[in-house]
């Protein structure tokens, strides 16, 4: 078992609870133990960096100081938290003046010497795919997913682990190893509309509808993501897109961690199926993956 500090992020305890829970179970199945950071706070997300830059560094900086005390690397599952934590670390590293200013504000040393890593990267770097294939009890062979990373996991270039930022491939490789027939498409890193979900729903509905159309065109029967905001927008706005565009899409959306747990035959995967706004059971039943 390899142990990492873990930053869950706000959504993983509520609207994306299935992500928070499945991340811990999937990681454990693969020999990775995630130890939650003590008394962490919200990273500030879009609202902080869009309105107050200093705040957008200081909020994650408090988490980084806690991570420094915990030692080792820090694993994150939410693409947005990952992006904000990484950026705060980078900016303070490049700008010692800013680091000193933030240190005063948070009353602790914000310099984190470990690495901030997304769970998908940690899994893919520590995994022997052939070994994973041999452990699959329920191959996802009837699933035809498209990998949807969303925008924040693969960007900004040079900062994040993904070198191929316009066409990341780790999730495709993982899903293929689990037996799925991964479909290629060119929308892997397109934005879902993010924080405009409540304020400009019309914009989000249009973007999400476009993603569904593209997924169908690619021959996919589900979408797999690593971002709670992407999943929320895709699921919440699927029905609204139906009203606006007069086309019915019924494509379930999964977190990649849920599919790891499902394919490895851990019965806990069933628990999360009921949490989806787009019911994945009909597809999984047809595929012989759920009762």
């Amino acid at each position, binding site marked *: 078992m390899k142990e990492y500090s873990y930053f869950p992020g706000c959504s993983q305890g509520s609207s994306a609870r299935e992500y928070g829970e499945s991340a811990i179970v999937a990681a454990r199945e693969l020999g990775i133990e995630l130890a939650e950071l003590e008394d962490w706070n919200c990273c500030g997300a879009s609202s902080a960096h869009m309105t107050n830059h200093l705040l957008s560094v200081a*909020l994650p900086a408090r988490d980084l100081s806690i991570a420094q005390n915990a030692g080792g690397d820090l694993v994150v599952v939410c693409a947005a938290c990952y992006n904000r934590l990484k950026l705060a670390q980078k900016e303070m590293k490049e700008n010692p003046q800013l680091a000193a200013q933030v240190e005063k504000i948070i009353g602790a040393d914000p310099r984190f010497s470990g690495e901030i890593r997304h769970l998908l990267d940690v899994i893919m770097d520590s995994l022997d795919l052939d070994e994973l294939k041999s452990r699959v009890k329920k191959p996802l062979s009837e699933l035809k997913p498209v990998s949807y990373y969303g925008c924040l996991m693969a960007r900004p270039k040079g900062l994040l682990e993904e070198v191929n930022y316009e066409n990341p491939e780790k999730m495709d490789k993982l899903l293929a190893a689990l037996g799925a027939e991964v479909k290629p498409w060119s929308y892997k890193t397109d934005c879902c509309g993010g924080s405009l979900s409540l304020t400009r729903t019309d914009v989000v509905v249009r973007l999400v509808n476009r993603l569904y159309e593209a997924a169908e065109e690619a021959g996919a029967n589900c979408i797999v993501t690593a971002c709670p905001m992407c999943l929320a927008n895709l699921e919440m706005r699927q029905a609204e897109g139906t009203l606006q565009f007069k086309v019915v899409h019924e494509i379930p959306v999964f977190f990649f961690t849920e599919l790891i747990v499902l394919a490895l035959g851990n019965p806990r995967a069933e628990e999360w199926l009921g949490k989806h706004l787009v019911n994945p059971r009909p597809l999984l039943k047809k595929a012989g993956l759920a009762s």
Partner: protein
Amino acid sequence: MIHTLSTSLDREIEERSGEKARLCYQCGKCSTGCLFNFAMDILPHQVMKLIQYGQKERLLSSGTIWICASCETCSVRCPNGIEVSRVIDTLREMALREGVKPAHKSIPLFHRCFLGNIAATGRISEPILMGSYKTLSGDLFSDIGLAFNMLAKGKIKIIPEVMRRREEVRKIFKETKK
């Protein structure tokens, strides 16, 4: 319409963000790749040009600065290495500081509710966030069916998750308020 020229605009943005809008040579890659261009009144490459022209008022009162979702597609594709989305962040911050009336007022209101939620409990809780935003925006009923659906699926926690040392987060808010 007559707009006052702000000759120091590109310098001001460079000082605040470290980004050099003056390097833009109008290739338009940012605007063609922008997923939100259909909802913008000024396209990203035009934002860069208007910065070079010192058109501060037009930029700070534009809808674009609020519509941009910071997906950073423009930033990774810019041949001159300009972090366009960071420049737009800076414009938003300037607009708020200077009290410019926002073209899409619901968006900064949402950000205020989001940050108010963090200041109060340290973490985002959907009932607090959605409740405060829906009340203050007056847009009470548009997502009500969705809210019930999310409740039924256990996707909304009624009792908010609260961190312990909230005073530390409150101090961050107090000291970053300029």
